[in-house]
């Protein structure tokens, strides 16, 4: 049962409330559906709406997203061309107006496609609790860190190096079957660096180390990507759900990996 909704005016107040056991919400799009329709233990929410955490700063190649920045803000910011397609693949317009960058980091799979992209971009977060603040990577963040994510920071990828495909049951507003986000750098036709993150195919965002290892040092061809897909099958942990079976996700994962990396 929802017992209080705090709307603090600054981060430190929010952090104090969270330390006291309250739950932070960005847009509330993950938490409210549950609170509306199901019995729940006494719950206090902390809205980040007035904490000043909504904002996008671009400084050279560095992008800083406030945790309360909405997906709609990202969608409509021309400086974030690579992320536009990512956020447009998430939910629907009236949900993206509410849903936030910070909230998406904790969306349960097969949701949370922005988090998949942020892992591929090697993004880092600032986590603030009542003892201070620290920085860690999105990948290290885990499901329930203590404290409040205040910002997400990443370096803009070189043009053409960021790849993203989300396979879903519908064109718009559908959870992921397989999400592939990757940054791939090449030199003289050979992959020199690859960072591949996967959504929809496990209980959390998966950093596809085996896929990366299979790609680095190889030319980006149908054959090498197929081999990388085979390697990746060992590190995904898909489950059955209402959208598709684990079998199906495993079966089409290499297809979507190839479509993401080669564009066809």
């Amino acid at each position, binding site marked *: 049962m929802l017992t209080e909704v705090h709307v603090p005016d600054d981060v430190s107040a929010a952090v104090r409330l969270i330390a006291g056991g309250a739950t932070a919400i960005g847009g509330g799009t993950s938490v409210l559906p549950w609170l509306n329709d199901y019995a729940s233990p006494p719950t206090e929410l902390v809205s980040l709406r007035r904490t000043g955490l909504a904002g996008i700063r671009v400084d050279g190649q560095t992008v800083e997203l406030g945790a309360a920045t909405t997906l709609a803000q990202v969608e409509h910011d021309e400086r974030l061309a690579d992320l536009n397609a990512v956020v447009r693949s998430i939910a629907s317009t009236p949900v993206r107006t509410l849903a936030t960058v910070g909230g998406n980091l904790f969306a349960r799979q097969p949701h949370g496609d922005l988090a998949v992209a942020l892992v591929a971009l090697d993004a880092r977060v600032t986590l603030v609790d009542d003892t201070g603040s620290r920085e860690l990577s999105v990948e290290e963040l885990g499901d329930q860190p203590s404290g409040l994510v205040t910002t997400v920071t990443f370096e803009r990828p070189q043009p053409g190096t960021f790849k993203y495909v989300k396979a879903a049951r519908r064109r718009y*507003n559908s959870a992921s079957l397989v999400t592939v986000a990757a940054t791939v750098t090449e030199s003289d036709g050979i992959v020199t660096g690859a960072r591949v993150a996967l959504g929809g195919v496990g209980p959390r965002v998966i950093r596809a180390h085996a896929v990366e290892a299979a790609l680095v040092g190889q030319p980006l061809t149908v054959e090498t990507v197929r081999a990388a897909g085979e390697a990746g099958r060992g590190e995904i942990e898909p489950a059955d759900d209402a959208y598709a079976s684990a079998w199906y996700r495993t*079966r089409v994962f290499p297809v979507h990996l190839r479509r993401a990396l080669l564009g066809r």
Partner: protein
Amino acid sequence: MTLLYGRGYASVNYPTGMNLGGDPSQALIHATTMGGFVISLSSVDLGQGLKTVVAQCAAETLGMPMEQIIVDTADTDTGPHCMGTFASRGTHRVGNAVIMAAREAREVMLQVAADELEVDAGDLETDGSGYVRLKGSPAKQIHISDIALAAHFKQGKSISGRGMFLKERSYPVPETGEMDPDSCQAHACTVADVEVDDETGVVTVLRLHNTYEIGRALNPAMATQQVEGGAWMGVSHAIFESTEPYYPASRAHGPVDFSEYLMPGSGEIPEQTSVILERPASNGPFGAKGIGEMTANAPIPAIANAIFDACGVRLTTMPFTPESVLRGLDALRDGEPVA
């Protein structure tokens, strides 16, 4: 990746009214002092437009304009019994009851008018604009507001009517199934064009070409809403919907909301071309048959047949998910997946 294209066919019929009949509906109609006609029903409009279509039936029968008709429905204290809105029965049953009630009211209306005009009621006609006039001498006419005032305050007559439609209940012969189940049958034929992604099994329904025979399109715009909305539901049933995605083996993973319960969004809808034929039913209101349910039916097998045409996979289990298509394609490829 290869996109495979195919075309499939299906033709169906569909019965009007509750199976075996025995499903009555009633209507009452009365004129107000100024010549409005109130139709009292207990019938339910689910969004198919029942309120509008029964008003049309009353207006046509009374010979009055639509503006004169008021529909008051779905209150069991004020409206007479109606079995309900299901079984493609609303337009047929309630339409018939309203026509019967309106005929009775029209007779009184013409008699009151005849007495006011001092002519024979049999020589009167309605012009559809609100006037009752003498056949052949249109100048001799009286407006419905004057007729109603005269009925109420001068002649002391109630311009009203009662309507009832019942198809007598049929009882099937247990041994043979001999029965009289329906009032009439509507018809449909659908040709579906689909695209199949041979790597993912994803089916896209590109086009539906449909012909519907519906007896009479009482309101062609609303008939179009019914057939096109219904065909969309057929597409949705065919390629998306289930409350039990792993039926019957497992009851798990039943969708609980509109995120999980998949239906085509407007980004997935096929282009629809629809043609309507009219072969009026002798027992239908102005010949109309019930069409609310039929329209979802033909697209489903048409899509199944189109998928086979496209890729050689025969799907015999609904819904036709990407997984079922892909498993079929893999089987055709001797279990050799292509990626």
